[in-house]
């Protein structure tokens, strides 16, 4: 379970998180929506231990990420996978080297030791899952935005992490590629049976994949609810979301429930 309790964070005097509280249950796809600059990505960085709050707790499986440093933090991060907004693939490595990076470094997959000779097989399987088989030897520079994101997903799911975090996975992509990414998110959740947190401002994808949606505004969680109830709220931002989809609630659970 993931729990953030009374988290405060500011940058140069600008308060980004103001006593944020959040609970994410095991096994759910939880989507965090909000305007740009509302602190969504900052939450992910706190969960990864890349940022420490000025106040509050960030708990993952009974471990407070705010109190983990050095090798204890790295040990905890072995269970976590993060898909960055721009993919963050290593430019100097091929796609296959990127996808096999974790396996090569730790020799562990889903908590079990693996033999190094099997890495190639796992990389191939992972790339096949995201529809990128055959591009193993290409470098990230020659991939499109959508391919980079899919390769980034392959890099995370290959080691079967317990927690998967996605930072704006469909931003800047066309609707068809966005739908492909949405399908992948659900497929990975179904396969790994872990916990998925998606940060997004794409309401169409959000409704299609989410078990629960949270709205963040002014550094606080305003509303947390399953998609149907979430869309019924009279909050101005949700009204805008409703206008964007023309009130079409048939999008809800489109990917999640098949």
């Amino acid at each position, binding site marked *: 379970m993931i729990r953030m309790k009374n988290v405060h964070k500011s940058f140069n005097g600008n308060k980004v998180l103001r006593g944020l509280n959040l609970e994410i249950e095991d096994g759910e796809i939880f989507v965090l929506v909000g305007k740009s600059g509302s602190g969504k990505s900052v939450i992910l960085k706190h969960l*990864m231990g890349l940022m420490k709050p000025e106040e509050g707790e960030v708990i993952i499986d009974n471990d407070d990420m705010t109190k983990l440093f050095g*090798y204890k933090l790295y040990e905890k*991060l072995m269970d*976590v*996978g993060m898909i*960055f907004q721009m993919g*963050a693939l*290593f430019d100097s490595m091929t796609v296959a080297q990127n996808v096999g*990076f974790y396996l090569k*470094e730790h020799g562990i997959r889903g908590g079990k030791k693996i033999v190094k000779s099997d890495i190639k097989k796992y990389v191939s399987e992972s790339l096949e899952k995201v529809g990128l088989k055959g591009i193993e030897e290409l470098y990230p520079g020659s991939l499109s935005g959508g391919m980079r994101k899919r390769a980034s997903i392959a890099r995370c799911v290959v080691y079967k992490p317990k927690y998967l975090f996605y930072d704006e996975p469909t931003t800047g992509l066309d609707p068809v590629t966005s739908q492909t990414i949405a399908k992948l998110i659900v497929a990975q959740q179904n396969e790994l049976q872990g916990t998925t947190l998606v940060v997004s401002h794409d309401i169409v994808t959000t409704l299609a994949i989410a078990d629960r949606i949270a709205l963040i505004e002014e550094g606080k969680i305003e509303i947390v609810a399953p998609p149907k109830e979430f869309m019924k709220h009279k909050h101005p931002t949700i009204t805008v979301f409703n206008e964007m989809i023309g009130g079409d609630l048939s999008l809800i659970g489109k990917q999640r429930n098949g």
Partner: protein
Amino acid sequence: MQTVVSQFKFLISVGEYVSFVATSFATIFRRLPRWSLLREQLYSIGVLSLSVVSLTGFSTGLVLATQSYYQLYNKGLVGVTGLMVAKAMLTELGPVLTAFMFVGRIGASITAELATMKVTEQVDAMISMAVDPQRYLVSPRLISGLIMLPLLTVYSVVLGVFGGYLIAVQFFGLAPTTFWDPIPIYVEPFDFWIGFIKSLVFALLSVTICCFKGMTTTGGAKDVGESTTKAVVLCYVMILILNFFLTLSLNVMRSEIIRWFQ
């Protein structure tokens, strides 16, 4: 008020740099980087720098011997040309010029590469996969720099003396024995150690400054460029300042040791 703030920021930066260097060494002593990463850096820092270091060392030797010859021949001191080239290359020009070339070729590329990785979240991605960037990115570069810069300096000194020999003997017609003979008599082990210690200190300084600047870059492409420029300029300034203090302190130390033994 602004001066106080900027001085405070400067002190914070120095503190962060010292902490970065300490963490880098702690990481190396805790667990050495993988051989494949080290080999890649040894090749990139050492082997790929050979051409530029060859040119620097050889041309410096040529110029040094030419200047020495013209300054000394009408004073009857032409016989010390070889010694001047050897001493100057070994104690000053070899370490300093090789370090300058090292910073220009390797240091700039280290800062640019790490800074690009930092601003494109590749470093964060590495951390998210439970891989310590200090161990994966900094340690191999630091170890390779500490091994390769002293070796490149020795190589540069040898080529410098050889360049000096070529011009003095082949062009100015000096007898080979006149060039070589004073060298083993007057060049002492201390001259070698002074050059070696300098190159080691310059390597430590250059690699850590360049890695630190790269790993602390935030923003975008413009900031990567700025960090690279700042790193290179800072390295040059620090090399020049430290070169003076090292020359002074090592010579004072040498005099004290000699006096102590007498």
